[in-house]
């Protein structure tokens, strides 16, 4: 009953000292909101990326070119497909491309593979001389199904050492209707068109290899036997790279955040001591009327728990609004490459319990540091001194 009394009194105090409570909660929100929002976006992007890897091919094969990934002859797809355990070997062209000054990703796949993507498309899958583009790109450039888009250039003739250049124009047969992060700025074309755009006749960027369960290791070894210059990337390796990439980005954010926090902590310590002389007098009154130091501290502890719960919960709510309503405005770009202040697609986010728990603990530590020590110091002096 005593503990319940102290808890209820703490709640009443939090309500009574409205200004102090308000100021401290605002400070907590300012500190916790970027952390919760960034963590949710990072987790969301990571989840989608890992899902994409897990749903992709089992093995990707490229050539080693001076220690980097290089083009691989397209006929290797046929060779690889003969290996026992391989269900499919799909040659791909994947590269960056600038379209009217906007950076996009061009993906070339065999027409048969494109058919499988129809379910995601508004319009139809691309045929020869056609393309399907992402929603973000379409919106940014004002394009729609039936319109046309220039993808790279070709030299049609050289007269007197002067090249005659012609833009490669493609008809837009469809638009990726999903607002997903990976298709927003994607340009999907038939692989022959992609090879032509990059003038890499006979070569592709990589070969995506699909393998029956249990054959991954043997298939990898067999592929390596075909050519020792092949670079083979398995699904597990891709996942590891992905994790490392996100952890690095997360690490950069955390470093910047810790610096900001370093500046914020003294502020909240000063603010949580807001009304300290009034609190000092109150503690003196409580002690003079028979309260013990431990009871005073217990009540202040409950006050801080209440404030921390309110602060962390409001920060979580506002974080949710920031991501879902404001679509991660200004913050999504930290975790998603090539995204400006306003993401042209729905920013993925995943709210997990751990960041909220950490936020609550951080809020509690901050408010405690600001009040428990000063309350304890006041509690242990004679009440007459505290009330003076």
């Amino acid at each position, binding site marked *: *009953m*005593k503990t319940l*009394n*102290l808890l*209820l*009194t703490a709640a009443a105090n939090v309500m*009574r000292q409205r200004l102090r409570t308000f100021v401290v909660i605002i400070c907590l929100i300012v500190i916790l909101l970027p952390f919760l929002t960034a963590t949710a976006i990072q987790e969301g992007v990571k989840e989608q990326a890992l899902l994409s890897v897990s749903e992709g091919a089992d093995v990707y094969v490229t050539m080693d070119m001076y220690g980097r990934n290089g083009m691989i002859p397209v006929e290797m797809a046929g060779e690889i497909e003969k290996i026992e355990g391989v269900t499919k070997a799909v040659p791909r062209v994947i590269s960056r491309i600038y379209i009217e000054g906007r950076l996009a990703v061009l993906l070339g796949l065999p027409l048969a593979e494109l058919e499988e993507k129809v379910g995601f498309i508004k319009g139809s899958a691309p045929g020869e001389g056609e393309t399907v583009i992402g929603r973000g790109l379409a919106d940014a450039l004002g394009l729609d199904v039936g319109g046309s888009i220039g993808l790279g250039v070709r030299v049609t003739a050289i007269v007197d050492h002067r090249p005659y250049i012609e833009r490669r124009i493609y008809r837009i047969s469809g638009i990726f209707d999903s607002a997903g992060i990976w298709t927003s700025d994607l340009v999907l074309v038939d692989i022959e068109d992609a090879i032509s755009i990059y003038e890499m006749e006979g070569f592709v960027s990589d070969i995506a290899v699909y393998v029956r369960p249990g054959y991954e290791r043997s298939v990898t070894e067999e592929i390596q036997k075909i050519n020792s210059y092949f670079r083979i990337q398995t699904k597990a390796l891709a996942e590891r790279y992905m994790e490392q990439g996100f952890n690095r980005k997360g690490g950069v954010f955390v470093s910047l955040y810790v610096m900001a926090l370093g500046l914020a902590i003294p502020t909240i310590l000063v603010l949580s001591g807001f009304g300290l002389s*009034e609190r000092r*007098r*109150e503690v*003196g*009154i*409580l*002690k*003079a*009327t*028979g*309260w*013990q*130091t*431990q*009871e005073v501290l217990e009540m202040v502890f409950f006050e801080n728990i209440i404030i921390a719960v309110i602060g962390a919960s409001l920060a979580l709510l506002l974080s949710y609004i920031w991501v879902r309503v404001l679509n991660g405005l200004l913050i999504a770009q930290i975790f998603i490459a090539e995204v400006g202040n306003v993401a042209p697609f729905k920013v993925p986010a995943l709210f997990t319990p751990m960041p909220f728990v950490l936020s609550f603990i951080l809020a509690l530590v901050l408010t405690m540091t600001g009040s428990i020590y000063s309350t304890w110091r006041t509690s*242990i002096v*004679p*009440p*007459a*001194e505290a*009330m003076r």
Partner: protein
Amino acid sequence: MTGVPYMMECRGVWKIYNEGRPHEVRALVDINIAVRKGSLTVLTGPSGSGKTTLVGIMGTIERPSRGRVYLEGREITGFSDVALSMIRRERTGLVFQNFNLLPGVPAWENVAYPLIPQGVREGERRRRAVELLSALGLAARVDHPPEELSGGEQQRVAIARALVNDPDMIILDEPTSNIDAGTALQVLEILKGLKREGKTLILSTHDSDLFGEADEIYRLKGGVLEGGG
């Protein structure tokens, strides 16, 4: 042990602020006082004579620099913070010159605050507080915070708070200094009633109207007890 059934006793009590520093203040010098059970003891003297400091020491909210303090013959000078808190909770009720009520808190809650850490339920706390406030003529003001009360009403709320634990001894610091003459008379009546109930009362005052009820009067001047105690 002193061997005499005094409620409160001070022996050779000194209180020195900033001792050994350039601004050293000797608030009390070698004070010897004995307060009998059930008596009304008055401490008087001009402003700055040390009355509030002595009241604070007897109320255990201040520690003496030197000397010994006894409660019912038991020395409490070296008691721990916890033990002194228990004395304040169970044995003494304090009324301060400036009332020291919690701002923004209704009168009944101010009165009942000492009961919170004792685990008394809110309903019971309110019942006891309202009963005391009603007895002191504040039945209509129980839900008003101190800011909405007059000086006299605040004084009575402070008295009710001092009584809520039903203490043996009530210590009042200048109980009539911040209230008008009419209210001072009401306070005097309250004190008479408490004395009739057998409570031990210690009060510091300038008010000579209260002297008539006193069993013992001590005069302080410059921190020294006139007549040597």
